[in-house]
């Protein structure tokens, strides 16, 4: 029975992952913005078998709340074993190109809020000398593309940050897992036409639980994205810049 802090708990991937944990009887502290949706998720996890579910409504762009979120979770569950950060937005690239204020908001949501949350979380686990940090990044962070480089660069920065954090926490026995999902059929991608590469969030959830059991460092979900992104990363820039990806 693990004590888990789940941030962005109403996201489709987080919900599916939490269902797996609920069946195992884990205790969870859920954080999300919409109170009504959050209580629906909490109720579901209780019926499925979670031994304790505590919720906290918070707007994650309010960075001042971050320390309080972590402190409250530790207090409510009397400690933490595992943290999953699953919040995020997929903004419209074009809007961010036209208006820096919109781009900045994307960076605050998809990169800076993670740094801000991970600071107290990492310090807590470092002191405890154990724990697991799981963060949802994205394959979009592996290479900048004209169609979504604002989101992509936020996720790319996040992946690099996690690399450094993993390096720092390795010696004290804390695992940092970077999850890079490909196309997932969730509300975040509702406006995108679905191709054969899309998978259900449940597939990603099972991959996350597997990565935790195996204490993996970086996981692509589903697995084939590791090879797809390898090909994409290997393309020479002189060719890549001419492509419409």
């Amino acid at each position: 029975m693990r004590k888990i802090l789940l941030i962005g708990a109403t996201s489709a991937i987080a919900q599916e992952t939490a269902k797996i944990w609920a069946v195992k009887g884990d205790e969870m502290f859920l954080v999300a913005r919409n109170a009504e949706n959050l209580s629906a998720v909490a109720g579901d996890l209780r019926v499925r078998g979670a031994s304790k579910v505590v919720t906290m409504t918070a707007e994650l762009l309010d960075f001042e709340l971050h320390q309080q979120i972590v402190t409250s979770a530790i207090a409510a569950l009397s400690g933490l074993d595992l943290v999953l950060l699953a919040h995020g937005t997929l903004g419209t690239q074009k809007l961010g190109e036209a208006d820096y204020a919109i781009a900045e908001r994307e960076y605050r949501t998809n990169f800076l809020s993670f740094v801000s949350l991970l600071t107290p979380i990492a310090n807590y686990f470092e002191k405890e000398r154990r724990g697991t940090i799981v963060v949802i990044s994205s394959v979009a962070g592996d290479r900048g593309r004209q169609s979504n480089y604002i989101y992509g660069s936020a996720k790319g920065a996040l992946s690099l940050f996690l690399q450094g954090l993993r390096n720092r926490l390795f010696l004290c026995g804390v695992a940092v897992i970077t999850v890079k999902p490909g196309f997932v059929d969730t509300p975040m991608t509702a406006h995108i036409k679905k191709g054969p590469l899309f998978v259900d969030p449940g597939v990603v959830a099972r991959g996350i639980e597997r990565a935790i059991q195996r204490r993996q460092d970086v996981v692509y979900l589903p697995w084939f994205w590791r090879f797809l992104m390898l090909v994409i990363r290997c393309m020479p820039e002189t060719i890549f810049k001419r492509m419409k990806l």
Partner: protein
Amino acid sequence: MNQYSASYECWGRFPKASHIIHRMRWITDTIPVDTGQKILPYGLGRSYGDSCLNDGAVLLITTALNRFIALDNTSGILRCEAGVTLAEILSVVVARGWFLPVTPGTKFVTVGGAVANDVHGKNHHGDGTFGRYVKNFALLRSDGIRYLCSPTQNQDLFQATIGGLGLTGLILWVEFQLIPIHNPFLDAETVQCKNLSQFFELSQESEEKYQYTVAWIDCLARGRSLGRGIFIRGNHAHHLEKRPPPPSDSQIIIPVEAPSFLLNRFSIRAFNFLYYHKQRSPRVSQIVHLDPFFYPLDAIGKWNRLYGRRGFFQYQCVVPYEGQSSPIRRILETISQSGMGSFLAVLKVFGDKPSPGILSFPKKGITLALDFPNQGRDTLELLERLDQIVRANNGAVYPAKDARMSAASFQTYFPRWQEFAKYVDPHFSSSFWRRVIAPHA
């Protein structure tokens, strides 16, 4: 949105349709009434025909409304969102000593679908339909109001929505009664049944003593063997000394459409013959897990692809019992003479427990269900001949399985249809509904 998609089918894969897809994510979401197109809720698409299709208009996908809300472990009352599947419910409640009060032959349906079709199962003779166990539900209509419906509150909407084919609005969540079980096993007995007369005898003899009864019959057997098959009956097992191992979770999935020539009268005849004769002794008793007992076909994923590109029709009717002279005999004769029926047909006695639904299908009598590969006009003509017998005998055909009954047949089978029509949401419709309310001569 506003992009037509052909990827949502009905289980019989006939007819084809294309839809504008809108997904519900939360029970607090609103319904898209501003598109000017009619709306139909869609769960797992296990209805065989066009009652789950809304060609050229909007499908409201409900599978993400899949959260449990509350389970009372003392009373066995479960409340969950309408997109939760029966499979998921079983995965949560069986280990805590509960089971579904009524279950259809597949667990891959949503609770919303179970209510909207007022589904029945092997225990209909004693326990009636799923709708009888529904305590209340929330119905979101296009006026934006969430109606709490129960036998005492918004009673008219309650009765219209149970068996209402998703036409009265979107069911958001359902609260219903589970039944207690000791373990996930059944005390089951399979009995060889030589013909229809023996089926009647076995049904009568089993009615009191067995909670679940059903017969799988060879619909190609004729003459003295008409109605030959295997009679299956069972009860939830009490305390077991030794538990058999649970079945494996593995599922075979039919990966592609089968070529149409694979299913012909010879291959079907051979299959039916072997199925009947695989049981060597006339009676076999065993302890079986609830999965193979209730959901034998769920072990084969996407089995509907076996019927190839043209798809298939399922036909399920109910006709009065009337002992040995039952019209079911004429129906079986018509089918066996045509030689067109497929695999195994299901025969079962319905009891007289009334259902709350205005448009519910089950009523006292005998029900027959079987598949027909779609062979175009020949198949349609045969089914129309069957309809004539059912109509003449005050029977009914199950809308959840239908893709072809005429408006005249529907209106004869469901004499209360106009009363029901008053509760159809003005923004909701389905391909089925447009077909069966069409004016006719």
